[in-house]
């Protein structure tokens, strides 16, 4: 059992959640700091998040993390107790501190050095926020020298605390044992301590003899039922040190009279009235320790809606992701099995109106429902991803020296967990690009009559069975002449290529293309937009760019909801069964011979409502037979590519429309352009799932331009 590794994993998982809560809280604080309505529960939640991170980090000895979290926590504590007012300036430092904390956590998890060097500066800023008298130095133990407790302290319990001074302990010659005289106060019992347990613990150290002195016991009628009258004389024979003995009484130090002397000495020395070992309580504002610092001027008690409560009470279970994936697989098999069964029944000549047919139909519905629900387990909201991007924007804009308003929309949209995880890198890159290249400098913006602060909007939305994620900025837009020139310089396109604006924009997705005139801190990390594109394609997604000069650029990423199933059109292509994702199909049509035209250089096209759409013969594209001459006998599937181009896929026959389980091919075959994956059909046969977009790219009309665009398959 490798429990400590498991717990470590739990810690980092929990950190993600805590960072999310931290971000939520700080964003709420940021908004509230503008109008001065700070909710104390928000401050508490933020404090708790940092506190928990620190607590866990300490358990794993993650020192850098502990030190920074401690400083952060101290500043938050000052705010909690009303000693620090949440100004927008201070909240900004908190936000940056949260970013740095996230960086430290990642580096601790991956056991690498933190990427950001903001630490010392932030430490300093956080330290400055804390009023000097209230500062607790990080990682410094309590002062070892005891200070006498104020008299009032002793009066509270009605006794005079007595302990032995350890400074007077003899040099470490092994003692043979100790004589201990012990008398408890009422408070000792009230706190749940029991001398018997302490004595048992003492007995664990050696041989213990106890003698009860009940001489102080008053007559029954004068006895306080909750009073403490008993005194014990203990003799402990042990080789343990006095320190070990004293440790047993650690919790009751100050709640009892305790005299410890070494055995063998003539008489026990008179009990020294020594200051308690415990440092005196630092007099603080008592409310600072409580959850609701009602006395604080800067903080108003919240309207009684504990933000963290809802999450905790949703009634959820934590399930191992592996288990969910196994479930998804089994359900996938079930769906296939159902299809096989249905095929058998049909082959046996049993009609769909029969009892068996009706039962099968119900089976299919249930299987489908089951599948959808199992899939839903894997779905997660994009919110944590978006929050992470907010951090990236802050970090990138800091480095670039630009002011950026970051806006998110559709945080609640849910996507498959794997999709979200694998979106992090491409999205980070896109966002960095937007900050670095997309947005102009404040001066340039003002010269162009725009507000000095740039704006980046990250949005998610469901659109026809897919998820659309967009990053748009209000920057200068793509510098098309420059992009074109760079593509020519790099030999990506011929110098005389005739390109539309959209085609120029798409050049940035070509491998080896980068418009950065100098390698900056942000984007010059050795990857280009081609990597972003292939990352998104590997998720079954498409990325598209649109740009208006002077107005800004929008990157759109369209993704499947899940990676496990898709709704497909099952088609016949030269005797082969293939599946075309329904989401790609706009309409199907059976063309009249008169609608088909031959266009020089573009092959055959079909006229659809007075627009010519190039025909892609799937049988020909996949090498099953030469190009068909007679498309009028075939069925055309009108598909739209991510670049808003339309194509007509020619197939022999439409079989069926059904949900198919995606079985990846890439691990076995590598990426085959035009083929997204495969599936197993009801009859047990394997069918390829077509990627219409890639198929279109494969079979681009031979116009003279942009050979590079045709070879860009990744």
């Amino acid at each position, binding site marked *: 059992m490798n429990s400590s590794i498991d717990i470590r994993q739990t810690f980092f998982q929990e950190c993600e959640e805590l960072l999310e809560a931290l971000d939520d809280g700080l964003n709420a604080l940021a908004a509230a700091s503008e109008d001065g309505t700070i909710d104390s529960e928000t401050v508490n939640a933020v404090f708790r998040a940092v506190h928990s991170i620190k607590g866990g980090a300490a358990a794993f000895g993650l020192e850098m993390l502990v030190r920074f979290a401690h400083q952060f926590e101290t500043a938050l504590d000052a705010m909690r107790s009303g000693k620090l007012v949440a100004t927008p300036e201070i909240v900004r430092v908190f936000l940056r501190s949260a970013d740095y904390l996230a960086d430290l956590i990642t580096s601790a998890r991956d056991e690498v050095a933190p990427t950001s060097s903001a630490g010392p500066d932030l430490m300093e800023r956080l330290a400055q926020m804390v009023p000097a008298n209230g500062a607790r130095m990080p990682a410094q133990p309590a002062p070892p020298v005891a200070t006498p407790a104020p008299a009032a302290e002793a009066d509270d319990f009605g006794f005079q605390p007595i302990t032995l001074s350890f400074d007077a302990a003899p040099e470490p010659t092994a003692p043979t044992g100790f004589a201990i005289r012990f008398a408890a106060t009422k408070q000792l019992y009230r706190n*749940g301590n029991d001398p018997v*347990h302490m004595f048992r613990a003492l007995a664990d150290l050696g041989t213990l003899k106890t003698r009860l002195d009940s001489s102080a016991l008053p007559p029954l009628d004068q006895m306080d039922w909750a009073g403490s009258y008993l005194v014990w004389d203990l003799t402990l024979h042990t080789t343990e040190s006095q320190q070990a003995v004293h440790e047993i009484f650690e919790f009751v130090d100050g709640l009892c009279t305790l005299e410890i002397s070494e055995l063998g000495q003539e008489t026990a020395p008179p009990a020294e009235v020594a200051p308690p070992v415990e440092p005196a309580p630092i007099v603080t504002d008592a409310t600072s320790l409580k959850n609701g610092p009602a006395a604080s001027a800067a903080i108003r008690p919240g309207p009684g809606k504990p933000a963290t409560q809802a999450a905790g009470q949703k009634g959820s279970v934590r399930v191992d992701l592996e288990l969910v994936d196994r479930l998804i697989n089994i359900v996938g098999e079930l769906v296939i099995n159902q299809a096989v069964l249905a095929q058998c029944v049909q082959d046996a000549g049993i009609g769909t109106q029969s009892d068996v047919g009706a039962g099968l139909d119900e089976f299919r519905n249930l299987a489908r429902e089951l599948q959808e629900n199992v899939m839903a387990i894997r779905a997660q909201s994009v919110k944590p991803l978006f929050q992470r991007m907010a951090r990236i924007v802050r970090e990138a804009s800091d480095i670039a020296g630009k002011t950026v308003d970051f806006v998110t929309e559709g945080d609640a949209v849910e996507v498959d967990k794997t999709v979200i995880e694998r979106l992090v890198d491409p999205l980070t890159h896109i966002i960095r690009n937007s900050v670095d290249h997309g947005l102009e400098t404040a001066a340039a913006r003002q010269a162009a009559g725009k507000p000095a602060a740039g704006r980046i909007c990250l949005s998610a939305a469901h659109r026809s069975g897919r998820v659309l994620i967009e990053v748009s900025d209000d920057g200068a837009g793509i510098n098309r002449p420059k992009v074109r020139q760079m593509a020519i310089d790099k030999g990506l396109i011929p110098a005389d290529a005739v390109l539309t604006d959209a085609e120029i924009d798409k050049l940035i997705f070509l491998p080896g293309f980068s418009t950065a005139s100098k390698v900056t801190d942000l984007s010059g990390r050795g990857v280009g937009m081609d990597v972003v594109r292939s990352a998104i394609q590997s998720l079954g997604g498409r990325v598209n760019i649109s740009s208006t000069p002077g107005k800004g650029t929008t990157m759109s990423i369209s993704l499947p909801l899940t990676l496990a199933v898709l709704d497909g059109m099952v088609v016949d292509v030269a005797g082969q069964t293939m599946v075309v994702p329904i989401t790609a199909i706009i309409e199907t049509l059976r063309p009249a011979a008169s609608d088909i035209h031959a266009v020089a250089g573009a092959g055959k096209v079909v006229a659809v409502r007075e627009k010519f759409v190039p025909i892609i013969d799937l049988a020909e594209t996949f090498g099953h037979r030469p190009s068909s001459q007679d498309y009028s006998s075939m069925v055309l599937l009108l598909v739209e590519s991510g670049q808003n181009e339309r194509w007509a896929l020619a197939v022999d026959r439409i079989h069926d429309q059904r949900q198919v389980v995606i079985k990846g091919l890439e691990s076995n075959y590598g990426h085959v352009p035009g083929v997204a994956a495969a599936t197993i059909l009801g009859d047990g046969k394997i069918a390829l799932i077509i990627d219409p977009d890639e198929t279109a790219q494969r079979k681009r009309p031979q116009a003279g331009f942009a050979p590079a665009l045709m070879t860009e398959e990744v």
Partner: protein
Amino acid sequence: MLTILAIDDSRTIREMLRETLRNAGFDVHVAVDGLDGLEKLEAVAPDVIITDINMPRMDGFGVIEAVRAGSTHAALPILVLTTESAPDLKERARKSGATGWIVKPFDDAKLVSAIKRIAAH
């Protein structure tokens, strides 16, 4: 076997407590915050409560005060978990009735020995 109710809002700490205490041969139950802990108190009927201080909904002081004010478990040993050896926190915990404290990050042996000092074993 000693039954322990461990209350902490951090999953990491809960798991560590559970692991350590189980290995020491205790029966461990966990709660995610003070209120949750109080709700589970009757059903679990622990011999010892270990509670974090800073938690949502109800903090550790709230737990101690509620337990001490009740009738059935008023004398239950309660250990509080503090992050650093903050003397003011320890003192305040003790004033509100905590039996003892454990400083996080806790040492397994120390945790077990602390429990043995306050409960029958």
